[in-house]
């Protein structure tokens, strides 16, 4: 189980790295710094 846990944590970090490389954090940021009209029920 310890190996599985380590592997999952490594996978999470790999995913975060791949996401940053693909620029996904930019989409998250763009969405988060503008008022999301759908989220608040207006759009």
């Amino acid at each position, binding site marked *: *189980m*310890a190996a*599985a*846990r*380590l592997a*999952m*944590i490594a*996978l*999470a*970090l*790999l*995913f*975060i*790295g*791949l*996401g*940053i490389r*693909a620029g*996904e*954090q*930019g*989409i*998250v*940021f763009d*969405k*988060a*710094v*503008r*008022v*999301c*009209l*759908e*989220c*608040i*029920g*207006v*759009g």
Partner: protein
Amino acid sequence: MKKRNFRPLIQTLAALATNANLGGFFTGKIYQGGAKYACVPGLNCYSCPGAVGACPIGSLQAVLGARKHWFSFYVFGILIFFGMLLGRAVCGFLCLFGFIQELLYKIPLPKLKVPEKVDRPLRWLKYAVLIALVLLLPMFATNQFGVGAPYFCKFLCPAGTLEGGIPMVLANGSLRAGLGAQFWWKIGVLVLVVLSSVVIYRPFCKYLCPLGAFYSFFNKLSLLRMDVDREKCVGCGKCGRVCGMNVRVLEDINSPECIRCGACRRACPTKAISVRFGLTEAPRRAGAKKVQQSADIDR
């Protein structure tokens, strides 16, 4: 000696830390700093004027709904990371909306115990919400430009209405002018969740929350886990009776429904329940028979 419960303090600090832009509630402007590149662990609307981070469920829908990505490595990576560290302790300690539901449940009114034959099937609803509203619809139900809407936020999320919608609408006249059926639908959902939270412990977490559904997959594997010492357990069944999430503590202490609130641990008269953080399992001891008897009482 009675065990002290630090959880409300941690929940308060987590709520303040993830909503530190308090001035936003007065100006009606949301925080636009670099911290919003990162997702917070709990359900916390990024359109809340106080929010300093991004909501992971909103972010997931945003990336999946964007034309250029078919999968969100970034948000899944963050969610798996939090899930692997804490499992649903995120729900129990770090989620603002979970905390709000708990506070509502403290209102001294008669409480409702949902019958098990209703409760158990309803628990699956949150997985359907995760799959349909958070993953599939934003990916496949797209507009003419190939962009998918955040369907969970748009039609269901009461946290968005409470933390983002109401404060933003109160502070901005231009938003008030744009209110329509969708807003009132979401207010209706919020009212339903708030009222049910007064009589049922964390109904949104139990039945609808897609974030809780995601973290539940990690409860057995996460570094933070609960453990029952089978030698110390006397089978009194107190742990099962105090569990607000209706976990069968002695059968499955790391159940997908356990939010690690620690109520069972505090109730245990023999200190048989412990919390563990680490890669390895607790050493197994004898006494399975005794625990089986306890499980029967628990049911």
